[in-house]
């Protein structure tokens, strides 16, 4: 399949990141943009750019026909979907392929089963990859009790049609089982109108660890080690790292091989991620497979020295994977922080608006994957990601120290953001020790306490700004419709 001009069906940092790899490969790029994104960085960086509709993504970035139209206009013969939007949409991939456009993503036969959690679980079980012990089918209470004993406590009861924690019950001993099932059924019925529940082994302090896999069209598959993404808030990843501080060399090989079994079972082509839950005893269980490039792929790029987007393009072209398993290096450690336009002081409420000042960290082994610039507008229509800041160090403590220093250099004016929140995490004892689990942010330990030793410097700057503003007002020429005398008098009054 030829890949001679790539249209990126995405926006923000991932669109910019794909454009950069294409540039290095000498491939022209085509950006698409909504009405809200005319001034966005990806439109500035690409070689061509086409408007595809209004701000709302369902009227622009999510419409495959708009993408096809932009392909026709530009002559792009390949589409990179980034992550989100159309990246895991089998129908969109099929529509592109039908139009003779190369979809730089997995084969459609792999997207479909992995799009359904229960289907994916079946594929994994059949392939011999461990899954969380339990039943996923509707079952009578007696059968559930028998199953719980078989699995061993603690177990988790979950509503089959549920979500958001409702209808979930953690059960530590057999005596609590029947009352818990009853309460779970009651909640499920009132919340979701269906009282079907199922049962899984409960994993205490679970860790989210995922394996990066790659396949080509010649049946070759490799794994590019793991990433740990246990630092989450409301099931959203906040910090990712590679490798995982929890994983031993034996566990790494076992997880890699388990991930490859899943990939091979669907003849996986391109970049994919097999997500696992791991318990504190290093048992791991298949969770799901993401059939796209992950947000957190930079940490894998740091430790392997590879360019995953380049590999995606090579595979899409029909080339063989450039390296065999034993040629892939694991060098040092990498951490990534997701920098968001959100306010940690107000329950992480999104904070769209204009970035009036921007200073990005510049240092050794620091990478800032950004989709913004000073003066750019962070629109309210899309996710609030400003950039992904990642660092590398020979060891985990060095990568973390570098991240802490880099966060200290990061300045974003005009909107609220989570840089200080990340700084607090970089000195959080359990994080430093690598004692991660998906609930570690449930306690808001990052809340600020008082002011630092340089507070007076901040006040001095503000006083300076106040004086300058007064002097400017006092000296300002007559503005049309203004009251110069009033301003002047006020300025003088204030400087008494």
């Amino acid at each position, binding site marked *: 399949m030829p890949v001679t001009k790539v249209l990126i069906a995405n926006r923000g940092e991932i669109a910019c990141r794909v454009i950069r790899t294409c540039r290095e490969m000498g491939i022209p790029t085509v950006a698409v943009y909504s009405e809200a994104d005319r001034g966005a960085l990806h439109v500035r960086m690409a070689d061509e750019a086409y408007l595809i509709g209004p701000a709302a993504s369902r009227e622009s970035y999510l419409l495959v026909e708009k993408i096809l139209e932009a392909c026709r206009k530009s002559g792009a013969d390949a589409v990179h979907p980034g992550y989100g939007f159309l990246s895991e949409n089998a129908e969109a991939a099929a529509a592109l392929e039908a139009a003779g456009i190369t979809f730089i993503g997995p084969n459609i036969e792999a997207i479909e089963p992995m799009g359904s959690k229960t289907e994916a679980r079946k594929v994994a079980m059949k392939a011999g990859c461990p899954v969380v012990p339990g039943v996923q089918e509707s079952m009578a209470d007696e059968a559930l009790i028998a199953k719980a004993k078989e699995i061993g406590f603690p177990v988790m009861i979950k509503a089959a049609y549920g979500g958001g924690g409702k209808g979930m019950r953690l059960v530590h001993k057999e005596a609590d089982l029947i009352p818990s099932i009853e309460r779970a059924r009651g909640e499920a019925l009132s919340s979701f109108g269906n009282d079907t529940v199922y049962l899984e082994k409960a994993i205490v302090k679970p860790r989210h660890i995922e394996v990066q896999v790659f396949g080509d069209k010649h049946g070759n598959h490799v794994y590019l080690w793991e990433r740990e993404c246990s630092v989450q808030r409301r099931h959203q990843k906040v910090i990712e790292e590679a490798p995982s501080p929890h994983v031993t060399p034996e566990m790494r090989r076992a997880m890699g091989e388990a991930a490859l079994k899943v990939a091979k079972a669907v003849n996986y082509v391109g970049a994919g991620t097999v997500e696992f839950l791991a318990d504190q005893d290093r048992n791991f269980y298949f969770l799901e497979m993401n059939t796209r490039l992950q947000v957190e792929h930079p940490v894998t790029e740091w430790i392997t020295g590879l360019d995953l987007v380049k590999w995606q393009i090579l595979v899409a072209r029909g080339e063989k994977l450039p390296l065999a398993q034993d040629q892939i290096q694991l060098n040092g450690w990498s951490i990534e922080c997701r920098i968001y336009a959100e306010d940690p002081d107000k329950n992480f409420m999104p904070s769209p608006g204009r970035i009036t000042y921007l200073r990005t960290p510049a240092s050794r082994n620091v990478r800032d994957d950004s989709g913004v610039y000073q003066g750019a507008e962070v629109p309210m229509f899309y996710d609030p990601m400003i950039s992904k800041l990642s660092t590398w160090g020979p060891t985990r403590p060095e990568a973390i120290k570098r991240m802490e220093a880099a966060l200290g250099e990061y300045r974003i004016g*005009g909107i609220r953001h989570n840089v200080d929140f990340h700084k607090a995490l970089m000195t959080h004892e359990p994080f430093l020790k690598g004692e991660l689990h998906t609930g570690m942010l449930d306690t808001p330990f990052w809340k600020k306490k008082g002011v630092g030793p340089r507070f007076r410097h901040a006040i001095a700057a503000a006083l300076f700004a106040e004086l300058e503003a007064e002097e400017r007002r006092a000296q300002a020429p007559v503005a049309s419709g203004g009251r110069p005398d009033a301003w002047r008098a006020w300025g003088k009054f204030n400087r008494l």
Partner: protein
Amino acid sequence: MKRTLTVGKEKVELEFTRINGVSTMVWNGEVVPLDIREVEPRCYSVIIDGKTVDVSLDTVKNPDPDVHAFRATLFDGTYDFQLQDPMKGLLAGAGGAAGSGGILTAPMPGKVVKILVAQGDRVEEGQTLLILEAMKMQNDYKSTASGRIKALHVAEGAAVETGASLVTVEAVEE
């Protein structure tokens, strides 16, 4: 130039002078010589007694135009504080600053996806009044007091700016 600094619940009386380009700050009576330069727009290099700090300053919207609210970012963190001309503070004190009077305002730009109450409804403190969506997330907006819905200022589907009035809740006598 005099200013009253408010940070958290503390207040500090300040004075700032610049004579022939030399800046000085008086902090609760203590004289502090300053070396300040605006190196970038709204970004200052401040040296006090050899200690150098790079301060980025953001102006924060404040309902009272006489109270200038700032957010300063330094290497060691971010600080929110307010400065007010003490003369104006006195005047304002005499006039009496009114509270926000039970009006729920939009804390960010977004779209009103759902309104859960109607005019005249009795509401409890903490009850969700409406849902606002921005950046793919839906946020609940709750009443900060018990009372009755006096007015709805927006309709479902409306796009709102930061600070826009959403709902007015009035206290009711029991």
